[in-house]
């Protein structure tokens, strides 16, 4: 598989629509634009897949299939509004998740076209260093820490956590958001906008 380095390409700062138009304008001859398009959208599709399919493996399969289909449509000039390509990718993801639950085969959905193989590296999840996260967790209040662990390790719903701790569900949500905001600050990735 040919791997295209998108990180320093001229396309990094391009709008989504510009990327889509470039891929349509020069089908198969714009690998840097395709690589940047893939880097940008594969992450979004993976997150969508994690939410709707509930695991890394199905999310990875979904990402692959959505990106194959989207890139083929772009190359063929079949995306009618390239400036709204984000909506198009989301629509494809929704359709494939819907079809996933109806158990249609990949071939039925994608046809037999070979995938544009030079950009299809799987998206790897970001990993936080455990020592760093542990240190940040220790800065939280007992309640914030408890709610985060019950949520993410315990996989308990807000309602269950609320019952367990004798709190209201809204209160659990507020405490969870505050805990994550503090972790985010401590980890040092980005800042919450003025909200």
């Amino acid at each position: 598989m040919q791997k295209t380095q998108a990180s320093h390409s001229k396309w990094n700062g391009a709008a989504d629509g510009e990327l889509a138009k470039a891929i349509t304008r020069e089908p198969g001859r714009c690998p840097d634009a395709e690589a940047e398009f893939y880097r940008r959208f594969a992450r979004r599709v993976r997150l969508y897949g994690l939410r709707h399919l509930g695991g890394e493996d199905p999310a990875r399969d979904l990402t692959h299939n959505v990106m194959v289909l989207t890139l083929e449509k772009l190359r063929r000039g079949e995306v009618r509004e390239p400036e709204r390509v984000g909506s198009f990718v989301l629509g494809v993801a929704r359709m494939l998740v819907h079809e996933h639950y109806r158990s249609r085969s990949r071939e039925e959905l994608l046809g037999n076209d070979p995938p544009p193989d030079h950009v299809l590296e799987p998206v790897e999840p970001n990993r936080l260093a455990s020592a760093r996260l542990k240190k940040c967790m220790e800065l939280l209040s007992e309640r914030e820490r408890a709610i985060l662990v019950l949520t993410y390790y315990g996989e308990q719903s807000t309602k269950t956590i609320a019952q367990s701790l004798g709190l209201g569900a809204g209160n659990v949500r507020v405490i969870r958001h505050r805990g994550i905001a503090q972790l985010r600050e401590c980890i040092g990735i980005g800042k919450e906008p003025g909200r």
Partner: protein
Amino acid sequence: MTTPNAPSLLPLSDLVDYLLGELSPADERRVEEIFFEDEASTRLLELIESIREGIRDLVTQAYAGGVVNLSMVQKMRQSGLTLREYRLTPGATVSCKAGPEDFVLVRLATGFGSAADVTVDVDFRDLETNRTAPTLSRPVEVDREADEILLIFTGEEVRSYPRSLWTLRVHGRTASGETEFGPFILDHTP
């Protein structure tokens, strides 16, 4: 596409609830339509997801913080973690011998009812030297369904203590004012 330092178009709270599947269908669709066109929201979602994975990893690596209910304990056991369990009632002394387990679970069982602002004070006495340590006080959560307080320590931490007596007293605010529960006593042998 948004510029690299642009703020997320979606608030953190929406993104947290989205990944948990706790938004209404309409809000979920709205969030998806925005983050599919917003790089900053995507990065924030990735961070939340990495925090989720990081917390799962931490507990698996014997992180004892934040474990407060029996469902959670059951989940830990199902994941293959080993917990040695001690259930303490007021006034009774329970012998505790630490082994190579991942965790030691101490269950304080009495009628905590709706006590609020609950803290546990721990007095430690070294039974070999008879020395004591300053009282350690920390806020705790009550598992309201079990009506118990669950304290979890890593096996490594417990094993580091000498032969000792741990006396735990719980304080909380009840309808009748400040109330003490206990004492709960652990007789620890390394």
